[in-house]
């Protein structure tokens, strides 16, 4: 059996070391990763994938710890991927989300992985989507993805999550400024964390009024839940809502949503493979440098250069 086949076998059996190795292959963009994913793909689609996003300091990690515990009480197996930013200057990253989840480490049916963005934009890493597939195939019932905590552009998460939870907390600056544009529209559930603080009710009202402005009739109306992550208050209710949303998706929009998810994934894969093959080819021919120089010298703009390269590629094939 090849090494990759062995890892696949381990993943499907829920072996933690195999899961960890599989995710590393994906993160490092190892040539074996594609083979591995092709093998596990048919075993995916069973897990409920939950995205958790919100500004830094809103309590995402602490709340996730409580959510995982609640799911464990209900007998569910849980996977967590916690994403933190990579420094664009050094390429290094400090991954500290586990600090809030220490005791979960030794639970047999919980798998937690910290992941650096490696300069991918949108609040997750390039590898996040495929790492979710590995956890899914390993038999996890619930997979939680914690995005980078910035707040305005973490919208990539809708491409991989079934249910998106947007967390906010009172006192984090200009009320709901942080969840204004992008995040407002992607939320399936809102959480106002640190609800024991002053102004929690005001935060709830702010979100309510924003939602009312968004007056398109929607079949699912995002509920707003107050939690105190430190004590676990409100977490049971949050899980109930997540469960409701999962059932809702199954019944009504499941097909549509998964088709649009499939489309997003296909587009992403085409983009990546096309770009890779063109860049590889230029590199082999030794002309990459030349093209890049032209762009740097402003002799050609990147869009026109791309167009030209694409035309050449598809003429031949």
């Amino acid at each position, binding site marked *: 059996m090849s*090494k990759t086949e062995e890892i696949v076998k381990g993943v499907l059996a829920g072996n*933690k*070391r195999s*899961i*960890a*190795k599989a*995710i*590393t292959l994906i*993160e*490092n*963009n*190892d*040539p074996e990763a594609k083979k591995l994913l092709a093998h596990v793909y048919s075993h995916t689609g069973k897990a409920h994938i939950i995205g958790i996003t919100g500004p830094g300091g809103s309590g995402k990690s602490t709340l996730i710890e409580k959510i995982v515990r609640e799911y464990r009480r209900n007998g569910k197996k849980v996977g967590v991927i916690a994403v933190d930013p*990579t*420094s664009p200057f*050094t*390429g*290094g*990253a*400090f*991954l*500290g989300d*586990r*600090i809030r989840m*220490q*005791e979960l*480490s*030794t639970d047999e049916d919980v*798998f*937690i*992985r*910290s992941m*650096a963005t*490696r300069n991918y934009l949108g609040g997750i890493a390039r590898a996040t989507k495929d790492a979710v597939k590995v956890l899914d195939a390993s038999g996890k019932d619930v997979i939680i993805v914690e995005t980078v905590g910035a707040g305005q552009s973490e919208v990539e998460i809708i491409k991989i999550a079934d249910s998106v939870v947007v967390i906010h907390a009172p006192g984090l600056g200009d009320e709901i400024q942080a969840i204004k544009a992008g995040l407002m529209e992607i939320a399936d559930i809102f959480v106002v964390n640190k609800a024991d603080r002053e102004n929690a009710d005001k935060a709830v009202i702010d979100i309510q009024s924003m939602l009312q402005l968004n007056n398109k009739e929607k079949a699912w109306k995002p509920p707003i839940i107050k939690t105190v992550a430190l004590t676990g208050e409100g977490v049971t209710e949050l899980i109930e809502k997540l469960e409701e949303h999962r059932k809702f998706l199954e019944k009504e929009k499941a097909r549509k949503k998964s088709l649009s998810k499939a489309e997003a994934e296909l587009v992403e894969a085409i983009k*990546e493979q096309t*770009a*890779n093959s063109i860049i590889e080819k230029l590199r082999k021919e030794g002309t990459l440098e030349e093209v890049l120089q032209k762009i740097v010298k402003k002799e050609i703009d990147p869009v026109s250069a791309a167009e030209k390269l694409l035309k050449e590629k598809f003429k031949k094939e």
Partner: protein
Amino acid sequence: MQSTRKIRVLIAKPGLDSHDRGAKVVARALRDAGMEVIYTGLRQTPEQIVETALQEDVDVIGLSILSGAHKALFPRIMELIKEKGLTDVMVFAGGIIPEEDIPELKKIGIKEVFGPGTPTDKIIKFVLENLPKRT
């Protein structure tokens, strides 16, 4: 896109002391050297540390200890590492560890022990030169 390997390091604090300035300085230095550093916070049990290393698939574990309990905790950690089959992980340590204890720690598989005042450059260099081989 080309395949790229990133060095992943777990910085862990076993046992009951709550001074993590040193651990954080080392974590930060390794991060600034381009590594992905996982920090798990204070008061970790050997089980938690090794389980975290396994799930995070780290190349290197750095243990920081100031409580004096290294003779009890480190052997347990090394034992668990063997038990779980983490043969491709390098372990180093730092903190307040008496000179005379170091040979014993090296015997159980700890690659190096750094005392107070070690320049971070030296630790970075050590990590880079002692990375475990992986296929």
